[in-house]
């Protein structure tokens, strides 16, 4: 049980300074997947780590108010939903499942549409992994939410 937060000023300062940079790096990893190593899985894990670090140094009572486990569940499910919709919407336009070239983004070229489709899918993966990992941590801690 993580009942009360650490009294140490060093831990609080370092963690609160570190968390925004971890989140920024996670977004960089997700959006840089087109040009280098990275992608949804890795970025999602980094996002989850930032929330888990907050849980560790603030304690669950305050941290659940800032980022509730129900929100994590909703984000994980919506990530999966984004991926599924990116697969199903092209079928409504006569293409096959997961054919991002037929996504209804008519203002860009077809190859650009595929690149945007990959980006949408990576965001979905990232949200799914993020929500799932935070959920697993919250349930291992064992507090009621």
């Amino acid at each position, binding site marked *: 049980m993580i009942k009360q937060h650490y009294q140490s000023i060093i831990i609080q300062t370092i963690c609160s300074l570190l968390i925004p940079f971890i989140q920024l790096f996670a977004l960089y990893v997700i959006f840089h997947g*087109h040009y280098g190593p990275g992608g949804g899985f890795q970025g999602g894990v980094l996002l989850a780590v930032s929330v888990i670090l907050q849980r560790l140094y603030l304690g669950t009572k305050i941290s659940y108010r800032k980022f509730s486990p129900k929100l994590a569940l909703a984000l994980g499910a919506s990530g999966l939903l984004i991926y599924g919709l990116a697969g199903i919407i092209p079928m409504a336009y006569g293409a096959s499942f*997961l054919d*991002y070239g037929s996504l209804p983004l008519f203002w860009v070229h077809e*190859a650009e549409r595929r690149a945007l489709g990959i980006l949408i*899918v990576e965001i979905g993966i990232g949200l799914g992994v993020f929500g799932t990992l935070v959920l697993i941590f919250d349930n291992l801690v064992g507090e009621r939410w």
Partner: protein
Amino acid sequence: MKWLNILIMLLFAALMLYATVGLPDHADPQAPASTHVSPTYIEDTIKDTHTPNIVTSVLADYRGYDTLGETVVIFTAGLACVLILMKRK
């Protein structure tokens, strides 16, 4: 019994070592694995998807179905953890 086990293990090890002789060389461009679909991916990635990272385009576009399955597996595993560990009244 113990010696029989060791003998069987040695026989299998010899079989595996014999099979490695027939494998293609490391990073051989003429290997069967590199001549099937890999050239198409390498040549058409920029034209098809405007994505310089071939790994990403294979993962999320050419093999998107596979990645959808992976994401479903991860989320299902998380849900199973929740159902097992959740505190009930």
